């Protein structure tokens, strides 16, 4: 029994004169100042100098996010939004000491909800812990949500064990990203600006004739909302708020009305008429992106996306796409060819419904940035390679276990979402997912909700196997899966490929359909690390809609010793 939640609901009901479960409206992030697009150049976060150990400070600072917007108060790594980019070599380990220099006792965004697990009023509000998304690391360096620490390590969470994180970089070339992962306030800390890019390079990549140097550009997409004074606006659910101490209140998703790339609102990039490699990341809290590239003047000419990689490295060969669907935390490595487009401008557009795929939230973020083909050609480029890197898919017959894991929304009787669950369990319930180190498991992610959820499993890379519709009513009533058709193959940019975040699409729930997504992973530790039976490496798996993650759509899981006798 979650008494806090119960008390909160009672208070909410009292606030509504005894006749309301939840007050009526959310305040949406949809009233930001209207800002002229494409007046600021795209910033490129600086690359940290080559080293094997780093001290990275989280600081509060003000930064101009648009020519016409007053400076915005932010939190960022090294006082930057985005944080600086790491560029490391596969197989060459580094250490990072993450230091919390954030000021004050209260979060500067007035949206901490003390009814959320791990965010109670006795937990310090200005806390942080850093997760390197997609990294193959041991648990003590993974940024466990309860391994948080405050300014100067003054207070630490129950799972805190080390100040210095070890990143072995025992994985193939790809783009990871680092961001805050503090239990109960991840959505607010990332929203405040705590995110940055981490590139891993390897010899396979060195040999590929891909655009390099200034022709390789990270594009990190975010949506935010602003007040007229330039400050960030994160909405709270209720108007008026329930009486203290339960205000302010969690919203099920944040959808902002203002698009940013690399921390600038609607920027532009001047390019040469040649190929560019863009390292794309959807770093929005909750917004899916459906991207197209069109000519700015006639909106007709479309540029193709030549996708060469995804979350965990290269595809085996380039895939040419007219549009890209990117869920939060997914990374797409794409080449765009501006050859022959001298003098033209192109817009990167988005038309994904929010929430995805049902839509209905007010406001869209229809554009992200402009590309101007205005620079003279300084060097020619090479054709895209036909082969990139082999992807040796995991075989389902090698899975020692198939786990069925349900994604479920929990509502009040009036149909208002309260929380989402994974595996029908709360964060605080005992661990149920406990793969043995070095073994392969298949996880069947059963979506009973109307939303797509980007599910991220820490530590591992995985292959998407397929998806399949099932009868939701039979499942709800009996727990049995009755399939409504054959398995659907993944998209060409999902398989063959290595992923760490997968869209678990919904079925058409009002027609009584759910949808299941099958993934398969090998639970390898970095450098094949071993540890004695009886010990474990504890990670998490979760939805990467940060509002869902913060409110129970996250579960711990443990990799147990490969030598362990299991059930």
């Amino acid at each position: 029994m979650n008494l806090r939640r119960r008390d909160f609901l009672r208070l909410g009901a009292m606030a509504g004169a005894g006749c309301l479960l939840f007050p009526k409206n959310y305040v949406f992030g949809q009233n930001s100042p209207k800002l002229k697009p494409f007046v600021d150049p795209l910033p490129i976060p600086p690359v940290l100098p080559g080293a094997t150990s780093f001290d990275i400070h989280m600081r509060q600072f003000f930064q101009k996010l648009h020519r016409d917007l007053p400076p915005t108060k932010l939190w960022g790594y090294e006082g930057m939004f985005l944080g600086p980019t790491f560029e490391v070599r596969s197989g060459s380990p580094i250490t990072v000491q993450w230091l919390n220099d954030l000021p004050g006792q209260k979060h500067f965004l007035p949206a901490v909800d003390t009814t959320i697990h791990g965010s109670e009023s006795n937990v310090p509000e200005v806390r942080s812990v850093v997760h390197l998304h997609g990294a193959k690391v041991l648990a003590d360096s993974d940024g466990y949500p309860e391994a948080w620490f405050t300014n100067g390590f003054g207070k630490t969470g129950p799972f805190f064990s080390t100040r210095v994180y070890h990143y072995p970089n025992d994985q193939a070339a790809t783009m990871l990203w680092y961001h805050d992962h503090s239990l109960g306030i991840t959505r607010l800390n990332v929203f405040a600006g705590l995110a940055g890019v981490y590139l891993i390079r390897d010899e396979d990549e060195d040999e590929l004739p891909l655009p390099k140097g200034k022709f390789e550009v990270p594009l990190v997409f975010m949506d935010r909302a602003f007040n007229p004074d330039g400050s960030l606006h994160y909405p709270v659910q209720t108007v008026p708020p329930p009486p203290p101490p339960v205000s302010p209140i969690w919203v099920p998703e944040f959808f902002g009305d203002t698009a940013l790339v690399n921390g600038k609102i609607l920027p532009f990039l001047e390019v040469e008429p040649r190929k560019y490699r863009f390292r794309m990341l959807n770093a929005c809290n909750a917004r899916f992106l459906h991207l197209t590239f069109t000519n700015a003047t006639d909106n007709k000419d479309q540029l193709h996306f030549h996708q060469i990689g995804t979350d965990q490295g290269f595809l085996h060969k380039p895939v040419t796409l007219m549009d890209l669907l990117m869920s939060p935390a997914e990374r797409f490595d794409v080449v765009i060819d501006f050859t022959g487009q001298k003098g033209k401008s192109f817009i990167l557009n988005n038309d994904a419904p929010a929430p995805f795929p049902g839509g209905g939230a007010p406001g869209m973020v229809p554009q992200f940035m402009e590309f101007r083909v205005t620079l003279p050609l300084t060097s020619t480029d090479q054709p895209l390679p036909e082969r990139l890197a082999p992807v040796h898919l995991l075989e389902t017959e090698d899975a020692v276990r198939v786990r069925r894991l349900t994604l479920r929304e929990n509502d009040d009787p009036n149909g208002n979402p309260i929380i989402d669950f994974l595996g029908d369990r709360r964060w605080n319930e005992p661990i149920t997912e406990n793969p043995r180190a070095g073994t392969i498991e298949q996880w069947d992610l059963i979506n009973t909700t109307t939303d797509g959820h980007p599910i991220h499993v820490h530590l591992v890379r995985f292959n998407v196997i397929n998806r399949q519709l099932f009868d939701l009513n039979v499942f709800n009533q009996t727990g049995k899966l009755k399939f409504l058709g054959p398995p659907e193959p993944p998209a060409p940019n999902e398989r063959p490929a290595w992923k760490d975040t997968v869209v678990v699409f919904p079925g058409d729930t009002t027609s009584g359909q759910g949808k299941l997504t099958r993934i398969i992973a090998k639970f390898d530790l970095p450098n094949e690390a071993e540890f004695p039976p009886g010990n474990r490496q504890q990670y998490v798996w979760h939805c990467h809609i940060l509002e869902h993650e913060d409110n129970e759509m996250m579960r711990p899981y443990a990799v147990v010793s490969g030598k362990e006798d299991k059930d």
Partner: protein
Amino acid sequence: MPRCKIVRIFAMTLFAVLVPCTHGQQPAAPAPQKPHDSHAGHTAAAPSAPAAHEMKPADAADVASLDAILAAFYASNSGAVGQKRDIVRFSSLFYPGAQLMPAEGKGHGTNMPRAFAPSTYIANTDLFAAEEGYLVKEIARRTERFGKIAQVFSTYEARHASSDPRPFVRGVNSFQLFFDGHRWWILSLAWQTETPELKLPEEYLR
């Protein structure tokens, strides 16, 4: 890449309890078809025909009359703290494809009504009912019937516990119903809760 074996011992054991997964081994999924290149990225689920349900037939007594089906609806929608509601009985009252639409249900940031399949409504609200208690009953009814069809405005109130002096929510359930010659079916249900700005009028309380 050189690989070294390292052995590390972790203190995290202190913080968690290992519980074996209750799910047994399932047969592996069929191998996917070989994907082909050059079409668009992943797409959302295509809408298709309503699923063929393996509905357990309703208890005949629950669906023999308008009174009976409404009584069964309120009984199976109610649950005291710690109690699991009868999802099979609740679902059996509805015509396949029926939708439940709360007018004030906000969904995820939309002002349009949400729509639930009957079993999804119970499955999604079971946690609330089990933790908070949800004892709902009818307090007034207006019925229009012509031949096989009926529409019912059914005013309800709900308490967390039967000892609560006042309900925490009231509203109107608007049912569309159908009689097939043998039994009644709920075709659809939309409901509006009372709010501070929208008080239940006297006519819906008698």
